[in-house]
């Protein structure tokens, strides 16, 4: 419990650090939401300054940071000038989309990676292993960008799957079961792309971890005692091999969120990704900051979960 509290506090410090740094960086950035306006004719020189003053952009940095913290307390996370609304509600609309996508991809990828990795680790040195290795290496070299573009084109051409988005038009009026099936169909392509991207890395690590344990003295001793292969593998080797995989789960979240951003933009999935890109294009710093904070929170929460899981699974780190 003390460990959990310590990790939680640490995460909060990290979040605070990221927010301060982002604020500093945004302050150093040349231009803001209104600077494009200055170039337009028909906008008086005073107008831009007045607008900036009205939105409080001319106040000193610490004051703005304090104001931002205050608005965070109210759940607003600042004010988006491009959307003309508080940032908080915008984020709350989009976070579930990203969560749904990344959670299903993580679940599916691990579900496939663990059996494949174990199977692979038990037949090292055979020809099927070599073929598998080459396949993984090639899969690893296909960027998500490319597979997403190809999958989408195939989906459109064949009409098997919807071409993007999260819901079919008019889905709101459908029955709950139909709506669920519709969302599932929309999930196939983005989740497929993400899983394909994660799978080679995960399988390699599972394989490596299980292989290490199979080669370790305790496994050899168990085998010498005549413990059956199946029980050795699932009863002794697998629990020991799981610990590094839990840390990997934490590490892989960052990559997954990054890949998810790209895939969301590509398939028009209503997650944080498209919102982020729009915010960047509009130079809407409050929204950029909001998305940065949400993605950081997602990653930190994931890492926290992984840490706590590891704490439960591995007594060696309980110091």
């Amino acid at each position, binding site marked *: 419990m003390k460990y959990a509290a310590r990790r939680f506090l640490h995460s909060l410090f*990290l*979040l605070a*650090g*990221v927010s301060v*740094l*982002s604020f500093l*960086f*945004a302050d*150093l*950035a*040349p*231009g803001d939401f209104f600077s494009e306006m200055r170039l337009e004719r028909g906008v008086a020189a005073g107008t831009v300054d007045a607008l900036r003053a009205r939105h409080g952009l001319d106040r000193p940095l610490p004051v703005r940071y304090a104001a931002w913290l205050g608005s965070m307390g109210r759940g607003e996370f600042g004010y988006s000038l491009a959307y003309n609304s508080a940032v908080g509600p915008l984020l709350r609309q989009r976070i579930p989309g990203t969560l749904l996508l990344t959670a299903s991809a993580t679940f599916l990828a691990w579900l496939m990676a663990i059996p494949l990795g174990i199977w692979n680790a038990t037949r090292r040195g055979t020809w099927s292993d070599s073929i598998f290795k080459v396949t993984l*290496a*090639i899969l*690893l*070299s*296909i*960027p998500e*960008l*490319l597979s997403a*573009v*190809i999958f*989408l*084109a195939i989906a*459109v*051409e064949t009409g098997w799957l919807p*071409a993007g988005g999260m819901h079919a038009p008019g889905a709101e009026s459908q029955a709950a079961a139909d709506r669920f099936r519709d969302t599932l169909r929309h999930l196939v392509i983005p989740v497929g792309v993400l899983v394909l991207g994660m799978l080679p890395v995960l399988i390699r690590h599972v394989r490596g971890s299980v292989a290490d344990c199979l080669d370790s003295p305790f496994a050899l001793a168990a085998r010498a005692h005549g413990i059956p292969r199946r029980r050795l593998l699932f009863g002794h080797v697998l629990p020991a091999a799981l610990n590094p995989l839990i840390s990997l789960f934490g590490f892989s*979240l*960052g*990559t997954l*969120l*990054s*890949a998810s*951003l*790209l895939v969301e*933009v*590509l398939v028009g999935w209503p997650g944080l990704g498209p919102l*982020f*890109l729009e*915010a*960047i*294009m509009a*130079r809407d*710093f409050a929204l*950029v900051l909001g*998305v*940065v904070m949400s*993605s*950081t929170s*997602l*990653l*930190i929460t994931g890492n926290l979960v992984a840490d706590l899981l590891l704490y439960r699974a591995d007594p060696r780190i309980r110091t």
Partner: protein
Amino acid sequence: MKLRLTLVLLAALHAFVVFAAFFAPYDYAEQHRDYPFAPPTRVHFTDAAGRFHLRPFVYGVTQDSPGGDYREDRGRRYPVEFFVHGRLFGAGAPGILFLWGSDGFGRDVFSRVLYGGQISLLTGLVAAFLSLSLGLLWGTLAGFYGGWVDRLLMRGAELFLALPWLYLLLAVRAFLPLHISTTQAFFLLVAIIGTVGWVRPARMIRGVVLSARERGFVLAARGFGASGQYLIRRHILPLTWSVVLTQATVLIPQYILAEVTLSFLGLGVGEPVPSWGNMLADARQYHTLIAHTWMLAPGLATVPLLLGYLTLADILLERSGPGY
């Protein structure tokens, strides 16, 4: 064997890209407005009468209607010429030779992929160099001197790693001007990608330096009164090379992809200069891609390159043994 094969593959790919001006039949900006979205030109050795020609040739192509299909015009035959105008090959005028088809402006996709590789590869290489230099500097200082330098590094590293890296990359990009020239965009990309990624190599190098500091011969040299500067230069840095090399093979493909991604999203290098990212953005409209599959070429070009670098990284990691 595997190492040699990988190195040959990588060297060949780099040679194609670096000497794009020689291997590409056209300039990247050269437009053939009469041939938008022309399919890959077929190179023939036997003519309609079944006669074999040692010198390959191409037929002229005509379009049924604007936007329609292309047909080969068997009446017009143009030989493929080698070593003309300082380039490896090209079709005799007025014939055209688009090995991988042409884009909407009638620009040769093959040539553009070669030229585009220059931006993508150079970004990857220079950014990796930048990252590794920063990592080497910080990692060595933190690992060797410890104290507040070390604490600052480790805390800062955590902050950098708290963000998913594509979000970090885009966030840094977000605060910089959007509309900039190609050269500016290139240097901006290199700077952003390079500075965003220094954390991991710095941590690894720190680890190596920490253990190197306690090695017998380093302690002995210190006992003889060697200065810190001398120790780092003479004993510590040489020990970090294998990590730096391995990290380079890991970072370069990652950074090439970062450039491709940013340019694809319209935040990197823009038209008319090609990069694999902004070329692939043209293939994003699926009706374009389905009707003109060759527009996928820049994306496919990344695959052998990544395969080469990732295999090289694997080989180096295996050699350096567990622990890295």
